[in-house]
């Protein structure tokens, strides 16, 4: 029996505004519990919401980037339900007239580019956080996150498998970080998604019953959760059972989805327009300002990197694929002109280290200035590329500047011909057998002599100089 999967994704993007959607409290991550909370976020009696315009500007940037229709007049509604981390007993969201309508996102699949249609995107406030397992018998409520602006982006059910879902989320991540709409940090909860999954027999025009998997917060889990759920649904249907429409959570420890308890009773959210806020109207001038100040997207950056920095298309594409990496690269180019070497380091050595630790470059101890300095020192031959690698390891671990490391460890490359000649002479003198063997034709021994020189100079001898002088001396 051939089955096909139908997936729709709702992405919740936390906007990178400094303050919340309806209050002037900070949105800074990682603060101690209940400190980024003001009267409004706490839902105290008598308080009123007030709209953060920057949240709208970011939402509009997103809408423009995906080619959507922008509703210059949009309305907030109340979604009423009770939960411990929802202080007012209702969430302020946009139901009937959202800020963004339509749009598309292209994803790369193994069959080429696929266009996914977006149904809509709207602004709403995030809820607080509940911690269920820290205090015996209690759930603890932290309202720091309550009121943070979210852009909820709803895709049409056009995604066909887990891999496409991951590609979609990755494309979303790149887009929102590029647009400076969100920091896209999934581990911190800045980007999360709900996946609506259903299956049907190929050729069946009817959609199968769908389940919603909520709050998936990593690309890996997106793939695993969807794969598990698809298998589960197919198994049920093949057994003659019926798929229940329900909300489920992905358990990453057990690698399975299970029904969510609090959503057992169907909720009637009783949406109605928020009477404490009036319709929001974005003026034509504000729209023009947003368009005029539109940030450069990935494709443009790639082109610019090949043109202005002479990078290969491949290198340019890799650097431009992450805004964080691209920003770091560009900052570094302010202090070094060897763009090719810089790109090489970022893509190769540095990329490997970052991957191992699963962090972004702006979460490491490296700075653009220090990296530029390292590139310059290799470029001007103060150090060899090989020494450069060990200096880099130190930089990565301690954040120290290359100059400081070179200084404190005396790592300057020895390039002085005289000095190198002296050392080469002593190596030749102390290894007469190898010299004889080499001159008799064992060319491979050249490497041995180089090795000895490097040993005596703790790797600091300039390799080119060593090669040149060694060849000469050995001839004699």
């Amino acid at each position, binding site marked *: 029996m051939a089955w096909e999967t139908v997936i729709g994704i709702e992405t919740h993007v936390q906007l990178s*505004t*400094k*303050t919340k959607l309806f*209050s*002037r*409290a*900070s949105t800074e991550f990682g603060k*101690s*519990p*209940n*400190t*980024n*909370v*003001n*009267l409004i976020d*706490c839902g*105290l009696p008598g308080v009123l919401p*007030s*709209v*953060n*315009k*920057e*949240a*709208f500007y970011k939402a509009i940037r997103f809408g423009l980037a995906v080619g959507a229709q922008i509703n210059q*007049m949009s309305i907030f509604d109340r979604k*009423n339900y*009770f939960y*411990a981390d929802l202080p007012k007993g209702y969430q302020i969201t946009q139901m009937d007239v959202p800020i963004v309508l339509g749009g598309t996102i292209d994803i790369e699949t193994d069959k080429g580019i696929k266009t996914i249609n977006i149904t809509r995107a709207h602004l709403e406030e995030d809820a607080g956080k*509940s*911690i*269920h397992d820290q*205090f015996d*018998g*209690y*759930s*603890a*409520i*932290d*309202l720091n996150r309550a009121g943070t602006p979210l852009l909820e982006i709803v895709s049409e059910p056009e995604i066909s498998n887990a891999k496409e879902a991951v590609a979609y989320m990755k494309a979303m991540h790149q887009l929102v970080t590029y647009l400076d709409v969100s920091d896209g940090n999934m581990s911190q909860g800045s980007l999360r998604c709900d996946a609506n999954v259903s299956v049907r027999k190929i050729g069946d025009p009817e959609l199968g019953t769908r389940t919603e998997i909520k709050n998936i917060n990593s690309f890996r889990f997106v793939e695993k959760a969807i794969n598990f759920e698809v298998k589960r649904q197919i198994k049920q249907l093949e057994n003659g059972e019926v798929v229940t429409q329900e909300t489920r*959570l992905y358990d990453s420890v057990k690698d399975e989805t299970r029904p*969510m*308890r*609090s959503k057992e*009773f169907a*909720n*009637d959210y*009783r949406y109605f*327009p928020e*009477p404490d*806020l*009036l*319709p*929001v*109207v974005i003026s034509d001038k504000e729209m023009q300002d947003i368009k005029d100040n539109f940030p450069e997207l990935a494709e443009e950056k790639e082109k610019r990197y090949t043109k202005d920095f002479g990078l290969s298309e491949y290198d340019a594409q890799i650097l431009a694929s992450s805004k964080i990496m691209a920003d770091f690269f560009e900052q570094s180019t302010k202090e070094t002109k060897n763009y090719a070497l810089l790109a090489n380091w970022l893509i190769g050595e540095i990329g490997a280290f970052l991957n191992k630790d699963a962090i972004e470059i702006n979460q490491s101890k490296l700075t653009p200035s220090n990296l530029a300095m390292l590139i310059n020192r290799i470029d001007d031959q103060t150090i060899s590329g090989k020494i450069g690698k060990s200096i880099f390891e130190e930089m990565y671990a301690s954040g120290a500047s290359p100059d400081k490391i070179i200084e404190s460890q005396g790592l300057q490359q020895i390039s002085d011909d005289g000095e190198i000649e002296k050392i080469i002479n002593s190596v030749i003198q102390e290894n007469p057998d190898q010299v004889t063997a080499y001159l008799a034709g064992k060319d491979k021994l050249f490497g041995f002599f180089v090795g000895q020189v490097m040993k005596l100079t703790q790797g600091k001898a300039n390799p080119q100089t060593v090669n040149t002088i060694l060849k000469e001396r050995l001839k004699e």
Partner: protein
Amino acid sequence: MDQETVRTICYLARLQIDEDKAQKIENDLETIIEMIGGLQAFNTENIQPLYSPLEKTAFMHEDIENSDNQKEKFLQNAAVSNEDYFLVPRVVE
């Protein structure tokens, strides 16, 4: 208004009515709903709802922080809390 509807409405509002008052409240609700049902007699074809008496749009504020940390005051007002969190009976997801 049937029992089922009353039960659902009560649950949505997280309210429970004492047994001895239940009948009276149900009767009251029916009376009031009948009264507001009288609106059906008014012709509202093509009339836009008036959600606020003001025909104006929202004033929006700048994205600048302007907030005091009043954590102690907020936690003090709660019936059950510790020095960091509001506490409720443990929720099982």
